[in-house]
Every structure is written in structure tokens, then in C-alpha cells.
């Protein structure tokens, strides 16, 4: 197991480096030059040169890249935001917890709703509750989240005045964004749970378990549920990065100052250092979640555990 985790970690680190390289080259691939953005369009050539020199844009590409990496790793310095003229880390630091709070809450609520529903749908396939749950969630997922966010806001905040329209001061501000997030992820989790549980129900070992004389309850809990939970647990971790990117737009609609909000603003302003930092953070989070899901899978499924460890437990 230890070798397995170490291998996954090394792969993850390598992946993050690859992404960081791509992200850093972005500056050179995109139109516009950071110096001219900082100086403004009408700045003189001398002024531009001075800015280039001051920020080190005139150095060779690789030197700049490794300098950037070194600063991030050892000084937690992601550079300066061209727009705010403030350290990027300082800008992001306060926004990470807000985004994480939103996504984790969404994740938990979504799974608390979707997993039991999926199990019921699988067990009572083709019943009213199955059709209702699958149909409704499918329609809701097909609705774009920004549109849903706007509609929810109109109905519950503007017309009914049940919750505040925007802001982030009280927990009530988070209700609508979380509902939006939950709704847009619901169908996929319900369907995943349902199909996993249905596969498990169809397995021969379920017949073996019945033939053994176990009651329905015993079979469902000990054989069906346990076996379908593997994929559900893995899915939990894999959903997190998706949700974070999903919130890039929802945060903007509700005016919640999370990472997504900052990211959109930075893209508009061509604030490269901020964009790079956020992409890097989301990448790292994705990689970490993937590693975690692999580890969970290894713990829950003995077939994988043994395949990766050669039998030491």
C-alpha cells in the first residue's frame, strides 16, 4: 500500500509540474504582454522597457519559469497582481476558504440526497419514485447553472425575499448557490448510484447470498450496498474539482467573492499572475482528489489493493 501511495504521489507531482509549465507558457501564447497591461496602452517604449526589466520579463523563458516555481514553492509568492498591485497569494488566501466551504457543503448535501435516492431507484426500478427522481434530476441537470441561479435568485430573493440577493456575510447567502450546485450535480450522482446498485443487484453473488438463506435486508446491506459504495466514494472525490470549476460561474452570479469570482475578473483584466495561480491551485486540488480517490479505492476494493501491493496488507 505504501508503494502504491508513493507512486501515485510522484505521478501527481509530475502532473502538477506539467500543468504549471503549460500555465506559465500561457503568457507567451496569449495576445497582449504583461508589461503593456501594467503600463497601460499609451505608455512610451522606454517606460515599457523599464517595466519589463523591473519584473524580469526580459529574461529567458526557462529562467523566468524556474524563478516563478521557486518563489511559489519556497516563498509562497505567486507574484504581483498587475491590476491590484498586490501579492497574488494575499488576494487568493481569503477566497480559498469561501470557495471550499461552498463546494464541500454542496458535495455533502448532494450526496446525502442523491445516494439514497439512487439506491431506492435501483431497488424499486420503474416505480413512480424511480421515474420521478430520474426524470426530474435529468431535466434539472440539463438546465444551465447560471440560468438556474438567476431564476432562483429572482424567485426566492427578489420576489419572495426569503434570502438575500447577493453577498457573503451570513449563512443565508449561501443557500441559493448551494442549491444551484446541488441541483446541477444531482442527476449524475443519482444515475451513477442507481446503475452501480443495479449492477450489484444483478450480480451472481447476490443470488448466491439469497441461496445461502440471507434475508433481503442482509443481502442488500452486506452485499449490494457495500459493493456499490466503492464507486460512490470514488465519485465523491472526483466531483470536488468539477464543482470548483462549476462554481466559477455561480459565484459570479451570486456575487460571492470566491476563487471563481476572482478568476473571471482576472481573465477579463488579463491579470495573468492571478489566473496562473488559480489554475495551479485548482490543478493541485484535482490531483490531490484523484490521489485520494485512488487510495480510497485501494482500501475498499481488495482486487485493486492486491494488484498494486502484490499482496502485502
Amino acid at each position: 500500500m505504501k508503494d502504491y501511495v508513493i507512486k501515485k504521489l510522484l505521478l501527481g507531482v509530475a502532473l502538477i509540474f506539467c500543468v504549471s509549465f503549460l500555465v506559465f507558457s500561457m503568457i507567451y501564447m496569449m495576445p497582449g504582454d504583461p508589461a503593456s497591461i501594467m503600463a497601460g496602452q499609451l505608455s512610451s517604449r522606454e517606460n515599457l522597457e523599464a517595466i519589463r526589466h523591473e519584473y524580469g520579463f526580459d529574461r529567458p523563458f526557462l529562467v523566468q519559469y524556474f524563478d516563478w516555481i521557486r518563489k511559489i514553492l519556497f516563498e509562497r509568492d505567486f507574484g504581483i497582481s498587475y491590476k491590484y498591485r498586490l501579492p497574488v497569494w494575499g488576494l487568493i488566501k481569503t477566497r480559498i476558504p469561501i470557495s471550499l466551504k461552498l463546494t464541500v457543503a454542496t458535495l455533502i448535501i448532494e450526496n446525502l440526497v442523491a445516494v439514497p435516492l439512487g439506491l431506492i431507484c435501483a431497488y424499486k426500478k420503474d416505480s413512480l419514485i424511480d421515474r420521478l427522481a430520474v426524470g426530474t434530476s435529468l431535466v434539472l441537470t440539463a438546465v444551465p447553472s447560471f440560468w438556474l441561479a438567476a431564476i432562483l435568485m429572482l424567485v426566492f430573493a427578489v420576489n419572495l425575499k426569503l434570502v438575500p440577493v447577493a453577498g457573503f456575510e451570513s449563512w443565508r447567502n449561501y443557500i441559493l448557490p448551494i442549491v444551484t450546485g446541488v441541483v446541477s450535480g444531482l442527476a449524475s450522482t443519482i444515475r451513477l448510484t442507481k446503475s452501480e446498485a443495479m449492477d450489484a443487484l444483478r450480480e451472481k453473488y447476490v443470488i448466491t447470498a439469497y441461496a445461502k438463506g440471507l434475508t433481503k435486508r442482509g443481502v442488500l446491506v452486506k452485499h449490494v450496498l457495500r459493493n456499490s459504495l466503492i464507486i460512490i466514494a470514488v465519485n465523491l472525490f472526483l466531483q470536488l474539482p468539477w464543482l470548483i470549476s462549476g462554481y466559477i460561474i455561480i459565484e459570479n452570479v451570486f456575487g460571492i467573492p470566491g476563487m471563481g469570482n476572482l478568476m473571471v475578473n482576472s481573465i477579463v483584466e488579463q491579470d495573468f499572475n492571478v489566473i496562473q495561480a488559480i489554475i495551479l491551485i485548482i490543478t493541485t486540488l484535482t490531483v490531490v482528489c484523484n490521489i485520494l480517490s485512488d487510495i480510497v479505492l485501494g482500501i475498499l476494493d481488495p482486487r485493486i489493493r492486491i494488484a498494486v501491493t502484490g499482496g502485502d496488507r
Partner: protein
Amino acid sequence: MKKHTEPLLSVRDLNFKFTLRGQVLHALRDISLDVYPGESLAIVGESGSGKSVFVKCLMGLNDLNGYVESGSIEYGGKDLTLLKTDSDWKDIRGSRIAMVLQDPMTSLNPLKTIGWQIEEAVRLHQGLKGAEAKKAVYSILEEVGISEPERRAKQYPHEFSGGMRQRVVIAIAMACRPEILICDEPTTALDVTIQAQILGLIRQMQKKYNLTTIYITHDLGVVANVADRIAVMYAGEIVEVGTSDEVFYDPRHPYTWALLSSLPQLGVKGEPLYSIEGTPPNLFHEVKGDAFAPRNPKALKIDYVKRPPMFAVTATHSARTWLIDPRAPKVDPPEHILALRERGKDLVAKAAAEGTALYGASAPEEETGAAASAAVNEENGSAKGVTARG
């Protein structure tokens, strides 16, 4: 030779149907069959003939869209067709009837150690707990031929080979201490050398615990090896039933002829293998007359009109074909079937002389089983002489 006049389990006129998307599938049509204590009964038939559905009826394991329309299954003073809920089945499933499923690769839970899976049955049916249950697991594992049981019990199914897994599946069934063991194609997924071992193991368990075994198979080689009695199923009905010798050496139903004819062992080298023309009838529609008639080149007129009843050939042998009716014209079975009959004559006569019931617990592999299997497993070379086929 022991005589068993009282059946252990008795099925009478069982009709079983499934509803599928508004249509009704008549899966079992008027099945009547007795199972005698201690015997090995083989149910033979092609895929879709209803043999699996039939044994699942005995354990209430059919899908929920299936239902018993009429008939009864008498077992232990109860009518099994009346059992509905899991708690109704509690005293039967596992405790009195256990089952070995077809494919050992998928019939074990991949996430649980095999020790855990056997222990589950031990706890339920032997009422043991903790260390005692563990001990029982080890001894069962040893009994089914798995060495180092204490180490193996901690392993997962994927760490076992196919044959070993089938041994584990048998161990689970035996841990239930059943009276009847149903083996649903127990060797289909295994290679030939392992097949013999597994059949040997089942037979060993049968002797040791005085089990009654019901085999479902489409492999006549397996049947010849293990069965005391054979029931041939076609299109949801039993078309012929008799002792192993009677069915192998004196088959009466054209479908049984065709089935035996398609045995590669009875074929002649260089000639194409025999195969039955056509396909089985669609059971979504009611079958008129003899279900096999459209595929039977020698079918009588009446076969298309009226369904034949079960005709008794001897006290133990009966077949559902008009050919046995005294008014029927004489239709001879294919020549190689006649040749088989020639060879089996002595055996069948001997059986008749000894009374009605040849099926018994007395060393089947030496008498009935071995004789039948010798005929079936005969090599092409020596079979040539007696199976000149047209």
C-alpha cells in the same frame, strides 16, 4: 438395492410464467417430477428450455416478474408455490435446499474474503459463532479439498483459480447443511480436467451427507457421469424422464434422439456433426401440439394438432410423444440410437428384472453411471462400428 417409493420432493403440473413488457412468457408448462431421497437427478435441455427457471422455483429465486400460475411443489409437508416472502422461504433456502451456481468467477462476492462468505452460511445454518464458526469454516474448506484453510480463508475470490472457486462455492452450499443440493451447470465454466474433479467432489459430498442432488446441464457427458435419473426438458416441458440407462439406451422422444445424435462422441470422424434444425418455439405464444414437431423430420400429423400426454414406458420411464401411443405408426429412431439401444438392452433388462427402481444410493459410478458414461465417452474409433449413421 434400496427402494425409494416415497418422493422427497414432488412437483405436480407446475405452470410458471413471466410478464415481460406486457407480454406473458410461459416458461414452465405442466411440469411434473418427483425427486427421491439420495438420488442424483439430471435435468437436461438446451438454453432457454426452462431448466434454470424450474430449479429456481424450488428456492424462490426467480425474478420478481415471474409467478406460479398453477400446480404445486410438495416438499417437507409444505407447498413451496405458496411461499411468498423471504421469511416464508427461511426454512427452505439454504437450510434445506442449497445451490451451486454456474459460474464460480461471478458467484462469489469479490469484496469479501472467502472465509467471511462461508462463515455467513455457517452462522446462519449451524448456529455457530466466533472461534467455533471459524473452525467450522476451516474444516469445510479442508473437506472440499482446499489445503492450508487458515491462510486461504483470509484470501479474496480473485486469488483463487476457477476450480478452486467452485470448491468454495460448494463449501458455501455445504456449510448450509442442506438436504437437497442443486447444481446449476456446475462445470460449464471450467476446463475439462477440473470438471471431473468438481463432479467427483460433489459426488463425495453426496455420499458423505446423504444428499439428494439435482444437476442442471446441457452437457450429456456430465449427465452420464453423475446421474441416476434424467429428465429431458424442451420448450418449458419435460419431454422424457427415466433412469440414466433408460434415457441413454432406450430413448423414446424424438427430441432425446436428436439430443443424443448431436453428441460428438457418437459421430463419425470426417462427417459433419449432427445438429438439430430450426429453433425452439417462442414461449410468448402458446404452443400447439408437440413443441418439437416443427423441428422433427419424422413428425406425425397429430403432433401439430394435439399436445401429447406423458406416456409411461416402464414404471420409471415416460415420454411426452405420440409415438408411444399404440395407435401410432411405427417410427424408428435413427440407426445409431438403435445401436445404443442394442448395447443398453442388457442393462435395461437387468434393471427391469430388479424391479422398478434402479435409481438408488448404491454405488452409481460402478453400475448405471459408468455404463452410460462408457457409451458416451467412447472414442470415435471404437464407436464407429456401432454408429453407422445415415
